[in-house]
């Protein structure tokens, strides 16, 4: 049998078209109409032939997704020079955006003919399930901006946007206003500084603004749904297979008051270049607050719902970014630039409207969550019970006891990050490299935890013998001098035997005590190094029509220095979402060596 017969394909057809009409009735006035259509279809099929693991008698799924988006902008622009030094412009615009998607698919199991055609008819009706869904969303907005410039050194822009969307709740305000403005002063153009040789460029800038994110579609009413009753870690019962089929009220509470979430941002900074642009420095400080954050808020199930999608949260970010660059060498054919960059971001979930905690990623025992009063992504897990004095509560056998209620245990967010790089050039040969450092933050090593459970971690691969008799977690006694597999531990009431019963209990992954496996996520990484050479010559150009040939040898992610062993603390089981800091059999970022040949025609 061909091992390549397992096939998962995705065929995308895309059609993008846009047209623009510009009318310029006067020198100072332009009217632009821009319309665009973006249409695509994605045909996905998954084919698992007979004898595939988990689909022993075959499985064939097919999904057809299509998306149609229409966007229209009508923009009027006017410019005016008020005086020789003062000029201004004004924009008035209207935007209309419509999105329609459809998704139709089928899933089949248990082929009638093992090698039959890839067709939904190759299964009995009870092994066929269909799915279909539609989405229709509409947004429109009017906007206006006014910009002024004085003497090419002082700039002010003010913008306002009024937006309405179909996804707003029927009892919410109909339209929302988003103002923004920015201001910049290029002060090296001051007469006094124009002659200063040491300063080549200087700019002060500040901006503030509000941007909005509209709610998801169809969240404004409580629906009735066909529900399959899922059984814990087991299977499921589907009412569609009983009686005449059923619809019941959903666990998601509809919200007629939905409004957009808004992010209020403020930023100020300074950009400086000195000594004929040899030395550059910039610093920015920012602060933003997301208010009315759209969150699927957990409800008390006893109240009749599990979730309520609403404008619930307030999340705050504050940070500083510093960039420093220096051109060390620029002589003959040599150039050398070095640069350094440092960033720090502080994040805090200031309000979740009593939502308790919201899962962003992880598992039942250890998760990354949004919790009021903590940074976004806070690690949440069970801990060992402690008494009022903060000492672990030990049981009669000298082992700690698990508190069944989960609490925040660690912060996966780094304190600061920095990067250092250089770029060295000699004629057409170049060498550049980048080193990165992330300071602080914590990570839960779930891989190690579950290996302890399975007894395959190196840390339990020992036979120990104690000179005194030891209690096991299970309560049995290992007599002095009797060898046992595991370790000898001490939780404060004398030595105990950490054997299988400990590691398959609270000492391992399924014991759910995340604080056991919390590690410092600080790392320093050699992110990349590139060595290259560009060849260009008349010969290449005339005989081969090549403007240049580039050869490059690169190494990426070459080494990492961190306090953890066996994994990359920057990896993450939740992928690219907001959930951070949980490792559980995650593929580590790869180390790679590349050779690149570039032919430029």
């Amino acid at each position, binding site marked *: 049998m061909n091992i390549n017969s397992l096939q998962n394909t995705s065929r995308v057809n895309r059609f993008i078209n846009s047209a623009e009409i510009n009318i310029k009735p006067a020198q100072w006035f332009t009217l632009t109409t821009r319309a665009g259509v973006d249409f695509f279809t994605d045909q996905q099929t998954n084919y698992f032939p007979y004898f595939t693991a988990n689909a022993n008698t075959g499985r064939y799924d097919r999904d057809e997704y299509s998306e149609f988006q229409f966007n229209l902008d009508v923009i009027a622009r006017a410019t005016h020079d008020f005086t020789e030094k003062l000029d201004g412009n004004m924009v008035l615009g209207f935007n209309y955006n419509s999105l329609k998607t459809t998704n139709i698919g089928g899933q089949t199991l248990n082929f009638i003919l093992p090698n039959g055609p890839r067709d939904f008819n190759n299964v009995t009706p009870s092994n066929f399930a269909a799915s279909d869904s539609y989405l*229709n969303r509409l947004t429109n907005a009017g906007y206006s901006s006014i910009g002024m410039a004085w003497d090419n050194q002082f700039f002010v822009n003010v913008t306002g946007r009024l937006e309405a969307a179909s996804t707003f709740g029927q009892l919410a305000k109909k339209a929302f206003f988003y103002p923004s403005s920015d201001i910049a002063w290029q002060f090296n153009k001051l007469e006094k500084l124009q002659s200063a040789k040491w300063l080549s460029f200087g700019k002060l800038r500040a901006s503030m603004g509000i941007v909005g994110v509209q709610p998801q579609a169809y969240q404004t009413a409580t629906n009735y749904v066909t529900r399959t009753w899922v059984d814990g870690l087991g299977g499921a019962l589907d009412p569609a297979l009983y009686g005449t089929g059923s619809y019941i009220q959903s666990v998601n509470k509809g919200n007629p008051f939905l409004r957009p979430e808004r992010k209020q941002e403020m930023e100020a900074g300074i950009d400086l270049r000195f000594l004929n642009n040899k030395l550059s420095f910039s610093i920015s400080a920012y602060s933003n607050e997301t208010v009315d954050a759209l969150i699927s808020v957990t409800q008390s199930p006893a109240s009749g719902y599990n979730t309520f999608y609403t404008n619930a949260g307030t999340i705050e970010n504050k940070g500083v970014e510093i960039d420093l660059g220096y051109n060390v060498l620029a002589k003959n054919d040599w150039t050398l630039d070095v640069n350094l960059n440092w960033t720090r971001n502080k994040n805090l979930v200031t309000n979740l409207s009593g939502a308790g905690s919201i899962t962003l990623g992880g598992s039942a025992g250890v998760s990354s969550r949004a919790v009021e009063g903590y940074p976004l992504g806070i690690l949440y897990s069970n801990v060992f019970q402690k008494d009022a004095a903060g000492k672990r509560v030990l049981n009669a056998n000298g082992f700690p006891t698990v508190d069944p209620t989960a609490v925040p245990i660690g912060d996966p967010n780094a304190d600061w990050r920095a990067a250092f790089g250089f770029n060295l050039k000699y004629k057409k040969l170049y060498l550049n490299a980048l080193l990165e450092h992330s300071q602080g933050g914590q990570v839960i090593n779930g891989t190690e935890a579950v290996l302890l459970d399975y007894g395959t971690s190196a840390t339990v691969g020992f036979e120990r013998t104690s000179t005194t008799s030891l209690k096991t977690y299970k309560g049995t006694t290992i007599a002095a001098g009797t060898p046992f597999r595991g370790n000898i531990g001490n939780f404060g009431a004398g030595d105990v035997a950490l054997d299988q019963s400990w590691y398959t209990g609270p000492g391992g992954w*399924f014991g759910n005590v995340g604080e056991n496996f919390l590690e410092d996520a600080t790392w320093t990484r050699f992110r990349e190094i590139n060595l290259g050479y560009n060849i260009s010559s008349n010969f290449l150009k005339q005989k081969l029509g090549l403007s240049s040939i580039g050869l490059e040898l690169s190494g990426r992610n070459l080494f990492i220095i961190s306090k953890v062993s066996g994994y990359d603390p920057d990896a993450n089981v939740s992928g690219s979402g907001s959930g951070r800091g949980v490792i559980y059999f995650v593929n580590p970022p790869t180390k790679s060596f590349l050779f690149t040949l570039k032919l430029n025609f």
Partner: protein
Amino acid sequence: MKKYIYGLFIVALLVTSCNKLVEGINTDPNNPLDADPNSMLTSIMVGNMNIQEGDLARFAGMWSGYFRGYTQQYQSYHQYSVIARNFDQAWESIYSGVYKNIKVLKQKALVVNNKRMIGVAQVIEANLLGTTTALWGDIPYREASNDQIQSPAFDAQTAVYASIQNLLDSAIINLNSSAFVSFTAQDIHFGGNMTKWIQTANTLKARYYMHTRDYQKALVAAQVGISTQANNFMAPHYETNRSAFNLYFQFLSLDRRNWIDATGMFGVNILNPTKAGNRSNSKTVERARWSYFYNSASNLNFTVNGFFGQNTYFPLATYAENLLILAEADARLNGFAAGLSRLNNYRAYMNTGAYINSTYLISGNFKYEPYVAADFLAGGIENAGTSIAQDRALLREILEERYITMIGQIEGFNDLRRTFKESDIKVKVPLNFGTSFPQRFIYPQVEIDINKSIPTVLPSLFDVTPINK
């Protein structure tokens, strides 16, 4: 400046047209906003089956000596190591899933004067919340699933049991009503047969009176309870489709192979005819029943004929349970002779093969001859070893019979906790771990996180629920 004023005017114009464009297109094209009561009924029934037969029953079974959690999470659970979050999903299914929809259904059925459907919904509700309060003690009830209340209060366990009895009384009145709109096709338990529903309501009344040790009322209710095996309240399963299979089968055979077995567990050992100390005697042969529940010393029987098999109906309330309620209540209230006669009724039923799959009913593999008074006297076959009083010996045998009959059911765990203090007669299931026996399930994390009415001191797994104090 004029042109700017014109500009502002245009903006104002656009804004007013803005809202009109987006109105009325946010109605979900994928899900309806309402459904009629007949269309809701089946899902409620299946949801209740999921609770009685799913992971709560597996937790209960592991802690009742019926089976062993062998690997992964279940190894931890087996050692009584559970966290609040392990109970989130079941709790959500109970409240925001089934109970909320029962409330909605009852209101809708009332609008069309479908009294009988209200009665059926009330029986399901009693079964659902009876199990919930038995496992968790104080639970939200009066204020649960009320749109106006975000943090429903936890009602005292005794009050919940009292409400459930009232609910079942009301159910019986409604089930007897002549006002109804047919729901035969949607009633997956009894196809609209009111006699069977009324008997089920009475058996459930008897069950919950047993929980609260109100044996007199239990005896009265059981006398009009399920009168024959054909009227058993069962969760139906079919082999047509995976999501209609028995949930134990799905877990044991499809989803979590080898996570649970029976090796060394008390339940399998006392049935196993080859094991020393098993419960067979000169009048009792348990080989057929042993084969039906466990097909070896170490496995649960999830073959097609077994109790945990693919399309084996799962018991929710049965004739067998009803007979054993009569036996225990009568023995406790009216003494030895009354109890013995009731137990012998049950044994007579067992001797016909009862609920055991016919594949295992091979002559010689099952025998349940009537006991006589002497069997329970010191030195008799049911009172060997350190002897106890005759009537206590009888109760001991009735409790053990209940324990065996309820293999795989949450009721087995409820019985062990109810009789926990009666150390002379209780079924002596050894601890899996440590020095304490689990006395309840712990409140789920999601309720702890959100519900401001949750008890401030959270009871631990080993804290006895109020009715068992």
